[in-house]
């Protein structure tokens, strides 16, 4: 059961070279639901996900999964519980969809161990869930951006982790495909109980799909709570430096953010 896990960043400090990106961050990731991380470009969202999944060693503090620091957990063991789909993965030239999705089974396989029926089942399920089954034998380089994105998600699903972190899985997708991906992740969360953490730029989609919304500024958690608690005009001003109106979305009863630019605005800023 996924709610049996705990994932907790304590006093986490991470950076590159001489610069610190995330400073003394504390975050207890809510388990069993969908958490969406929002924040301005370069505020450290990807950096936080990379630190949580052992890709970046912390300068200070630690990330604790089930009572154990992730940097002390063997890489493959961690990869069976916690998955990450990075912002820009690369597909090897000519690889087919089924093969790429099969790479998701890596943490479940030994050095020379043979491919098991469980591996095949996981790949089949992942292709089916992402509706990419029809593409199984196609080379990934020949797919459209949206199809490719779903294939990468399928790879992450084939990893069968209880916690899945996704860094901007909806970039390159048109609005209906964005919804499709988020619906798919919601299905996964509801049917398997997978804890899902997504970085998103579209605040309104974030508010609609998040059980928990996390707003980051300058490598710090500015606010964490339900969309109604977090997506307020004050928070948006603090996090994005943007004036806006927040109303209730009649189609979902979630908050809906209407940005106020310098032009084309009929209300007072």
């Amino acid at each position: 059961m996924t709610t049996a896990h705990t994932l907790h960043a304590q006093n986490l400090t991470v950076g590159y070279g001489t610069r610190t990106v995330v400073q003394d961050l504390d975050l207890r990731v809510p388990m069993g639901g969908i958490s969406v991380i929002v924040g301005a470009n370069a505020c450290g969202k990807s950096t936080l996900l990379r630190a949580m999944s052992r890709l970046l060693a912390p300068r200070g503090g630690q990330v604790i999964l089930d009572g154990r620091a992730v940097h002390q957990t063997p890489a493959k063991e961690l990869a069976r519980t916690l998955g990450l789909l990075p912002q820009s993965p690369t597909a090897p030239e000519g690889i087919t969809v089924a093969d790429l999705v099969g790479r998701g089974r890596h943490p479940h396989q030994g050095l020379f161990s043979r491919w098991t029926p469980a591996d095949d089942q996981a790949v089949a399920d992942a292709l089916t869930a992402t509706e990419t089954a029809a593409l199984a034998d196609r080379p990934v380089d020949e797919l459209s951006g949206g199809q490719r994105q779903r294939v990468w998600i399928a790879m992450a699903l084939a990893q069968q982790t209880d916690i899945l972190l996704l860094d901007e899985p909806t970039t390159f997708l048109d609005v209906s495909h964005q919804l499709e991906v988020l619906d798919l992740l919601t299905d996964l969360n509801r049917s398997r109980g997978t804890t899902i953490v997504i970085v998103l730029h579209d605040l309104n989609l974030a508010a609609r799909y998040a059980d928990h919304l996390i707003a980051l500024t300058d490598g710090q958690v500015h606010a964490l709570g339900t969309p109604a608690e977090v997506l307020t005009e004050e928070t948006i001003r603090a996090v994005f430096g943007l004036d806006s109106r927040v109303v209730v979305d009649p189609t979902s009863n979630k908050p809906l953010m209407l940005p106020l630019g310098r032009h084309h605005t009929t209300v007072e800023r």
Partner: protein
Amino acid sequence: MTALQALPRTGISAAEIAGGRRRRTARRRLVVGILAALIVVAFVVSLCVGQTTYTPGDVLGVILGRDIDGASFTVGRLRLPRATLAVIAGLCFGIGGVTFQTMLRNPLASPDIIGISAGASAAAAFAIITLGLGATQVSIFAIVAGLGIALLVYGLSFKDGVVGTRLILIGIGIAAMLDSLTAYVLSKAAQWDLQEASRWLTGSLNGTRWSEVVPVVIALAVLAPVLLTQSRNLSASQLGDDAASALGVRVEHTRIIVIIAAVGLIAFATAAAGPIAFVAFLSGPIAARIVGPGASLLIPSALVGSLLVVTADFLGQYAFGVRYPVGVITGVLGAPYLVYLIVRTNRSGGSL
């Protein structure tokens, strides 16, 4: 672990996935089998055929230690060590080359293009011609130089991560410098010897002795299994460092093991046979064409390398009336492919 409850949509079954995978594995096995058989044939032919031709029976007799008039010397002392080195060095070049190409995600990033073979060759030429050392010391010289050059090229091209094209261009520059170093060492040699020169500049198997073959066999027996254990990690790291780490690959760890093992294989083979031109560079792409995408190329590429060297050496000796060293033949094959790759990179808007 929770099993994914198949959502009721148009899907694919595990059996279909398994079927597709089995077809690919079967194709790979077939390719490996055919390549291995071809190597055996080429090996036997190059033992039997030559100025004087012996029957396979005679050759087998010599291998089993029987004393056969004429054949014992020609086959046992001349052809056998030479053909064995051709097979073994080809395996080393093939597997070492594809390892680099896979790791750096670029077919141009093979050790014979980016200066590693050139470094090993310059060091070996220096150790033999200037210092007069024996086979073991020569191998040590070559591997230290190969690793040193690998580090140097990597270090010089490092700036917020290593960009493939920068590494390749720096490697090509360093390779050119090392080639001129080799030429300098050769020009200072007491007795100028064309055979020796062609060995260190393009690779040659002329006058191979068992004492030169043995270190390469040992290197292959030790280092090839090390590379094979990294095969899956290497495939996963093709997805990019982040995605690979997220799949549980220790990327840096894998990279270090793989570089040391591949450079070791290239250096040992080069210390014995010289930098046989373009074998490391050609084997991987040829293997990829035959095997198809997605499969691990380490073994197919090793076999392609071996077949290339054995065949090219045989052709070089007997096909043209004049005897050419093996590297001249492989060079003629490889150069057009190099030009093709560079043209293609330019067309596709690569930054090369």
